[in-house]
Structures are given as structure tokens and as C-alpha cells.
């Protein structure tokens, strides 16, 4: 049997009078380039037919093949004893000891969410959950990194509300707590909002599943939702191209999620994984059956023969092309021996899931697709899954960043009288405002493992019930800082993630990442991408943190206007005991407040304050000092000193961090009285606004009943430690500088910080 012939292009000129209208080349309809088409033809030894071309279009899309990024991703260090599964599988897996392990993965769902915020975000959650339970791990936590345009525009507000509800809808229904994340607002994301979702799961090492289809003769099963005509071309046309005028016409390329079926799939797949009777499994995400079948066969070095007449479809009359490229949600591809077929189908039936044997593993290395007795496609599986070209696209590396020098006339420092109103205004900015409005819509306690919930710590902490250990999770995402300095900005993120999990008491164990960029076809985007990889790699080496995998999202641009280079990292830390989790908020009045690290090492470059005051994003953000970062992680995760709380000084600088220590509902009634050293020297470092609102890494605010231990521990590590003041019981933040009272932020100001976001979004 030979696959059906490629359609012939109509010959022009043969009819004499008709004017030939050149039809667009075949490859364009599936998002491929002319030379990629030639490559495919050479590999097949003939021209691909329409179905085959569709398979290549999806699998060789940027979204599925990482063709512009793969050449560089290998620079990220992924080797470490605790890494059980590194990049290349559906998720990374880290060792927790005693046969226990934890799987983690982050992915973007930016383009679908821009087109249809609720379903785009919901299916993003559904997809990342499948990546985790595909490994045989029970999903135990979700985090999300979100970027929107300013919420004073109705469109941005609609996106923020829709995305939030979509995330909540899927996570809440499936019973997986959403425990953390990061959300900021900037005009650069107005046309291209970012929705990055991270999932973490617990597994027993013996139940680890692989996304492979080994053993010729084994059955290939499709379980879950029926296959419909939704999401066709999601990977190739929606996620692998920039937006033009109207993204709305791409709405049919967005899928619709059903978290109820998602929950049933979790339970059925975990039950099957624990039975030891699965040979392999893969979720169906981008490029649907095509991706799952070619990747599992490609990894195992086998082939798969698919009979599409056996695929349960939502409607009759679907073509081979549609079935192969459908991105209908909540489907899994399983591989099992023929003698286990009845068992597998029985488990699915009990969970109320459709299940069908749709194919067989073969030894010929080919993906063959049969429908109605016709061979619709016959291509080498590994060429589809692993054969996409690897591009080293033209790249223009960014110029080294130059520190901002404020012009005294236009960029005057704050007077002491102006400091308070600047602080109040800054705290109301949606980016810095309390995020309770968001996380209150997410079930963050289901599964009863949440020790530190959203808003309570710099990282979420979950209990690992079987061992009594805890894991700390932090999602940190770039913006203005990597825009100014891609290399340094990426390094800052790793340092911040490590600091965050350490503040919560965890020792960094590994990280996953999601890299969001504009079009890789533009040299400046590629240049920033390459420097981001290098910055991440350097930081991971300096801190000894392996990268377990990641995701790249290109083409986040509209009309030639790109987002900032926006890397996101998901850091996982380990606590010897979950009960050792440390919050970020003060716990009692009368405790001392200290700043660890270089208190005055801050710049306004790329800060929230620079944006607020001068509508400016300029300069060179400070890069991490690795000695300081390592000392902070050692101190905070080592339990050397008894600390009541620890909080990283991040966006918004010192004043924001001080308010965050006492501003939440949890800490109501507590206040602070602190004295900051008068800024010295010349230039920007001598400015009052730089002291109060400047941003720089390596600084952590801690509270403790007794500072003697802390000071001794810091001295041992060579870490700066300066007492700033004390916590109080009056709900007021009092800040003085050089002994002179500067500002007082009362309960109303703290409430305004908490209420700012609902005011924008409700």
C-alpha cells in the first residue's frame, strides 16, 4: 500500500484564456518554510501528501520542535546527583530520598490566553497537569506567572479577570492547589499577555513512567475525551507566529477544557501507573495524536501503526488530517502489552472514560496512519519527533548596559516631605499591590499539604506526607530588568528564586523555566535569548542548582512590537521538616528587624519607582554578588539562627518590603519602627529615593526575638547584618533616616495596599 498521492497544483496556461492565479505554496498553509519542505521531500524520497505535510507542519513548528532554541538550551547545566530525570521528557524529576521523588515542569499558554483568556488559561493548567501525571506523579501544586497590560484599560482587565478565573476553574475542579506565582502589569504586555503555568507532583520512583512506546506488538491506546475538530493548528499557526491585526480569527484554534474529565484522567492514569502494567504513556497536547505517537515511538526507536477508524471521535466524518492534528483536551496515549488490554480498558470504564486501542507498536520506525483501509501517511517517526532543523538564527547581542545617570533638573531626588506620598502611590501600583484578590480565587489548601499558603511566605511550602519533609516553591519572572540586561536579568531571577525558597527555609534543589520572547526571526530577539540562556547557566553554576527542563515561547509580539525578554523560573527547595517552614510576615511585637546583605546596594535602574516617577526604563540593574547569595541561602536554609520571619527585598525596594512584612491580614495589628542609614557618597547612591525605592539583589529582611545567634551566624558567613529596628503592636510602619523621622504609614495606608488590586479588577 502506498500513501495517497500529493495533490497536483493546477497547471496554468493550459486552458488558453483563463488567467493563472498562483496558489500559495503548500508549505505555507501549515506554517513551514520552502527549505523545510525540500528537507522533508528529501527525507521521504518523495513529496509528502497533505496529511503528511500537516504532520510535519505541526511537529516542525517552533512550538513543538524548539528549532530556534534547541541549539542553545544544552548550555543550561542539568547534571546533579539529585536529578533523576532531566530535560527531554514531559517533566523533570528530582530525588527526595527514600524512593520518593518530585516532578516539576513549567509551560506557557500565552497565545491561546490572548485569544480566549478563560479557556486559554484553563487548558494551560490542564496541559501542565498532564505533563506531571504522565510521569506517574500526582500533581500536588500549581503556580502561575502572569503578565498583563495596565488594568486601567478594559481589555487588559478582561484578560486578567478571564485568565484568573480560567486558572482557578481548572485547578479548583481537579483538586490541585494553586499555591503561588507572580503577576505584574506593564503596557508592553497589552497585546501579548503571558500565562506561564507550573506544576509539581509527588511520585514514588518505582512508578516513574516514560513517554516511550517500546516493544513491537504492544498496543497503543487513546483514553479520555473524544477527538473533535478543536485546536487544529494550535501549535503551528497560533503558537508559532506573531499576532497580526486580529487574533480573534484564531479563536477556533483554541481548545476548550473539561476539568472534570481532567480529574478522572489523573485518577485513572495514576492507578494504571501504580499497577506496573503500562509500558509507556504520553499526554496529548500540542499537535495531538501526531505528537504523542511520533514522540513515544521516536524515543523508543520503534514505529507505530495507527488505525484512525478506532479513534473515538466527537463527530462523524472527520478526516485523517483533522484526527491527527486535533488538540482536543484531556486525552492520553498509553502503551500496554496485549494481555493487559482488558485490564486497562476496565480501569478506564470504571472512571467513566472513553478508551480504545487505536494502534500497535511496530519495529519499522515508521509512523503509519490508516483510515478506511487507506494508508494516509507513512513517515519515519523519529524524523517527525526529533528531525526538525536546528537553527542558529542571526543574532545581535545586546550592548552592555550602562548605568543610568539621572539628570538633576528632570530627575530630582525626593525631598523628605515627598517621601511618604511617593511610598503610598507606589504601593497602590497594581504590580506591587497585594495579590490577595488573585489567590483568593484559587483553592490553595486542597490535599491538605499547604504549610505556607500564598501571601504567607516568599515561597509556598508543601508537606511531603510520606517523609515529613517539605518542598518550597517559588515562581519568579522577569520584565524590565532582563529588558535592560538580558544576561544579568536572568541571573537575578535565579538568585531571587533561590533567595525566596531559602527565606521559606528551603535549600534549592533544582529549577524549571519558561522563556518568553518575541520573534526569533529578529536578530535582537535572538541575541537577548542567547544572553538569557548564558545568564541562567552562569547563575545555576554559581549556586549549584540544576535545570530540570523548560519551555520556550517565541513570537510573543504583535505588529512588530515585542514583549520584553521575559524569562520565568520555577525554583524548588527542600526542607528537612515541613514544620520548619518560615513565613515572610512578622509574628509578634517586640522582635528585632535586621537587614541581611548589602543594605545600600540598590539602583533605580529598571525599578518600579523609575517607571512610576518618570515613565522610564533605563540603565543597568545591579547583578548578583554570588558570595552574598550563597551566604544568604546557607544562613536561611541551614537553620543556623532562630528567625521568626524572612523576606526578600525585591520589586519596589526597601519600603515595599517593610510594608509587606506587616501589611497582610495575617499580620494585622503589627507594625514596624525602623531607622535606615543616611545615604552617603555621590551620584545616585546618595539619593533618598534610591535608598527607599531602589532595587538590588542580595538583601533580606528578617525578624527575630533574639539577634545574638543571627549576628554570630552572619559573622561566620561574612554576611552583612544590620539591625534596623523593631516590630511594634500598633499597626503602623514608622521609617526614619539617620535618626530623623521620615514617614509614617498607618493602617489605612496598609489597607490601601491590600485593596488596590480589587479596586482595579472588580
Amino acid at each position, binding site marked *: 500500500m502506498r500513501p495517497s498521492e500529493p495533490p497536483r497544483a493546477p497547471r496554468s496556461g493550459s486552458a488558453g484564456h483563463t488567467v493563472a492565479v498562483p496558489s500559495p505554496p503548500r508549505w505555507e498553509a501549515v506554517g513551514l518554510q520552502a527549505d523545510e519542505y525540500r528537507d522533508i521531500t528529501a527525507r521521504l524520497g518523495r513529496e509528502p501528501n497533505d496529511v503528511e505535510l500537516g504532520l510535519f507542519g505541526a511537529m516542525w513548528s517552533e512550538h513543538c520542535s524548539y528549532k530556534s532554541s534547541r541549539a542553545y538550551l544544552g548550555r543550561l547545566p542539568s547534571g546533579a546527583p539529585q536529578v533523576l530525570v532531566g530535560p527531554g521528557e514531559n517533566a523533570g524529576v528530582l530525588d527526595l530520598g527514600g524512593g520518593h521523588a518530585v516532578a516539576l515542569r513549567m509551560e506557557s499558554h500565552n497565545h491561546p490566553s490572548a485569544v480566549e483568556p478563560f479557556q486559554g488559561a484553563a487548558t494551560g493548567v490542564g496541559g501542565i497537569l498532564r505533563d506531571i501525571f504522565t510521569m506517574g506523579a500526582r500533581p500536588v501544586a500549581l503556580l502561575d506567572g502572569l503578565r498583563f497590560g495596565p488594568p486601567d484599560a478594559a481589555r487588559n482587565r478582561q484578560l486578567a479577570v478571564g485568565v484568573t478565573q480560567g486558572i482557578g476553574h481548572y485547578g479548583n475542579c481537579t483538586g490541585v492547589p494553586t499555591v503561588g506565582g507572580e503577576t505584574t502589569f506593564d503596557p508592553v504586555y497589552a497585546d501579548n499577555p503571558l500565562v506561564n503555568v507550573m506544576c509539581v507532583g509527588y511520585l514514588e520512583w518505582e512508578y516513574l513512567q516514560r513517554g516511550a512506546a517500546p516493544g513491537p506488538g504492544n498496543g497503543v491506546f487513546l483514553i479520555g475525551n473524544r477527538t473533535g475538530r478543536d485546536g487544529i493548528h494550535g501549535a503551528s499557526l497560533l503558537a508559532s507566529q506573531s499576532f497580526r491585526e486580529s487574533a480573534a480569527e484564531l479563536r477556533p484554534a483554541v481548545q476548550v477544557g473539561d476539568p472534570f474529565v481532567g480529574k478522572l484522567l489523573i485518577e485513572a492514569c495514576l492507578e494504571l501507573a501504580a499497577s506496573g502494567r503500562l509500558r509507556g504513556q504520553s499526554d496529548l497536547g500540542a499537535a495531538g495524536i501526531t505528537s504523542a505517537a511520533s514522540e513515544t515511538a521516536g524515543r523508543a526507536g520503534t514505529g507505530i501503526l495507527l488505525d484512525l477508524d478506532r479513534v473515538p471521535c466527537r463527530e462523524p466524518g472527520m478526516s485523517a488530517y483533522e484526527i491527527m492534528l486535533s488538540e482536543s483536551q484531556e486525552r492520553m496515549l498509553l502503551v500496554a502489552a496485549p494481555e493487559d488490554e482488558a485490564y486497562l480498558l476496565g480501569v478506564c470504564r470504571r472512571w467513566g472514560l472513553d478508551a480504545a486501542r487505536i494502534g500497535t507498536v511496530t519495529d519499522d520506525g515508521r509512523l503509519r496512519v490508516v483510515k478506511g483501509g487507506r494508508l494516509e501517511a507513512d513517515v519515519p517517526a523519529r524524523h517527525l519527533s526529533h528531525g526538525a532543523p536546528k537553527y542558529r538564527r542571526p543574532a545581535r547581542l545586546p550592548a552592555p548596559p550602562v548605568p543610568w545617570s539621572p539628570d538633576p533638573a528632570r530627575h530630582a531626588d525626593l525631598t523628605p516631605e515627598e517621601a511618604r506620598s511617593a511610598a503610598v502611590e507606589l504601593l497602590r501600583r497594581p504590580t506591587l499591590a497585594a495579590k490577595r484578590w488573585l489567590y483568593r*480565587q484559587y483553592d490553595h489548601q486542597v490535599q491538605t499539604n499547604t504549610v505556607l499558603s500564598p501571601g504567607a511566605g516568599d515561597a509556598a511550602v508543601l508537606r511531603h506526607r510520606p517523609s515529613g519533609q517539605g518542598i518550597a516553591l517559588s515562581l519568579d519572572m522577569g520584565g524590565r530588568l532582563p529588558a535592560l540586561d538580558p544576561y544579568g536579568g536572568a541571573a537575578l531571577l535565579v538568585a531571587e528564586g533561590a533567595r525566596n525558597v531559602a527565606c521559606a527555609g528551603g535549600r534549592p534543589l533544582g529549577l524549571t523555566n519558561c522563556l518568553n520572547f518575541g520573534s526569533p526571526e529578529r536578530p535582537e530577539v535572538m541575541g537577548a535569548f542567547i544572553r538569557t540562556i548564558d545568564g541562567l547557566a552562569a547563575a545555576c553554576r554559581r549556586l549549584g542548582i540544576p535545570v530540570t527542563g523548560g519551555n520556550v515561547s517565541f513570537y510573543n509580539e504583535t505588529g512588530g512590537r515585542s514583549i520584553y525578554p521575559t524569562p520565568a523560573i520555577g525554583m524548588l527547595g527542600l526542607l528537612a521538616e515541613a514544620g520548619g517552614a518560615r513565613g515572610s510576615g512578622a509574628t509578634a511585637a517586640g522582635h528585632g528587624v535586621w537587614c541581611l546583605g548589602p543594605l545600600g546596594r540598590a539602583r533605580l535602574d529598571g525599578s518600579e519607582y523609575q517607571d512610576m516617577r518618570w515613565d522610564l526604563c533605563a540603565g543597568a540593574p545591579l547583578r548578583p554578588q554570588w558570595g552574598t547569595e550563597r551566604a544568604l541561602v546557607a544562613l536561611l536554609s541551614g537553620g543556623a539562627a532562630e528567625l521568626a520571619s524572612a523576606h526578600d527585598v525585591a520589586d519596589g525596594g526597601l519600603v515595599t518590603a517593610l510594608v509587606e512584612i506587616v501589611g497582610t491580614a495575617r499580620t494585622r495589628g503589627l507594625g514596624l519602627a525602623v531607622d535606615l542609614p543616611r545615604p552617603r557618597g555621590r551620584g545616585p547612591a546618595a539619593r533618598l529615593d534610591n535608598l527607599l525605592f531602589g532595587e538590588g539583589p542580595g538583601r533580606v529582611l528578617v525578624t527575630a526575638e533574639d539577634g545574638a545567634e543571627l549576628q554570630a551566624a552572619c559573622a561566620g558567613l561574612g554576611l552583612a547584618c544590620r539591625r534596623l529596628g523593631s516590630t511594634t503592636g500598633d499597626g503602623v510602619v514608622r521609617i526614619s533616616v539617620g535618626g530623623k523621622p521620615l514617614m509614617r504609614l498607618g493602617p489605612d495606608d496598609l489597607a490601601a495596599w491590600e485593596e488596590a488590586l480589587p479596586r482595579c479588577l472588580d
Partner: protein
Amino acid sequence: MRAAVIVFPGSNCDVDAALAWEQTTGGTAERIWHETADLSGAEAIILPGGFAHGDYLRCGALCRFSPAMRAVVAAASRGVPVLGICNGFQILCESGLLPGALGRNQGLTFRCETVRIRVENTGTAWTGACRPGEVLSLPIAHGDGCYWLPAEELDALRVRGGVVFRYCDAGGRTGTGANPNGSADDIAGICNPAGNVVGLMPHPERAAEALLGGTDGAAILRSALRVLGVGATASG
């Protein structure tokens, strides 16, 4: 002290409830698939939170057709303590074991946070270990928790002591904006006339150990022990 935790497709707090029961009471909890009709041997029954049947049609509506629910109704009529938590409360209302209905939250959004509730009736199977007027801190996590009942039925419910919990502030006061979902009369939980069937929106199983930030839910689970002391069982 054997509890049955009924598992519907879409239940997602069943494991939490079973663990909390075992931890707080020292008893055992078995998760029972909804197609099981035999609940004999269960001395207490918990309908856990979640999104049974995807909350399609209405929250909790489809559960009453499950064989296990027919067994729950029969056990309830024999006096076996039955606790419905969140989605379980919705299921109890939909199956007619408790009056009223739970609609969309007044604010129209899902809310997950810790609230306070006041114990209004300590004479039920699930509040015997609480003090009258005691204020409990418990987590909520729901989008459809707005309790509603026609006015005359609400009066009847109040008169017979059917209101078991009301949302309140830290001082135990109601009507001060502490109601998170717009429930009639700040109602957070109710019981049947016999007092053995209780439904509530907050999650006692999430507040059963100090590590997770609170233990106020333990008293609710432990209350059933007092009833079990008098020997009511599903088979009895």
C-alpha cells in the same frame, strides 16, 4: 469507629477527609466508590468536598442517583452520623436530606480563605464536642456557597434549631460583613431535625492539624465519637 467517605467522580477532598478522620478520631476511614450500595459497617459517613460529576447540571445534583447515596439516605434515617462538607453539603441538599439550596456566591467569584463560624447548636452529632457560641476558624473554598431557603422555611429551620453554624467575625458577631458568600441569615451549616445529618460549607478536615495552621476542625470530627458511644451503626 469506622467512617465511610463516599467518593464520587470529581470528589477531590475524599483523601483529606479520610486522613483527618483517622488523625483526629483514631478510627479508620474507608473511601467508598459511589457505585457501592452497601455501607453496612460504617458508623459514620462523610460526603467530601469536590466537584462531583463536574458540578454539571447543578452542584451535587447528579449524586442522588448513585447507589451509595441511596444507602446514605437509609443510614441517615437510622441515625448514623452523616457530615457533608462543601460539595457534600450541596449533595445533602440536592438529595433532600437537608432543606434549602446553595447558589452562586454573591460576589460571583470562587473564594478560598479562612473564615470564622459560630457554633449555634451543640446538640447535633457533629457539634457535641464544641461549646455553645464557640467561634471556629475554618477554611472555605467554594464558588457556590450562598445558602437559600424560602422565608417561612427559614423560620421553621431557625425555630427547630436547624442552624448549626453562622459566619461571624473574630468576636463572634454576625451581620458585620463576615459572611463571605451572601448566605441567608449568615448560615454556614445546618442539620436535619434528628441532628445526625449536618452540612456545612467550611472545611473542618483542612483545619485538623497545627502544621497546616489550625485545629478548630478537629472538634467537629471528634464530635461524632460521642454519638458513636451510644452505638448507632449503619447496620444497626
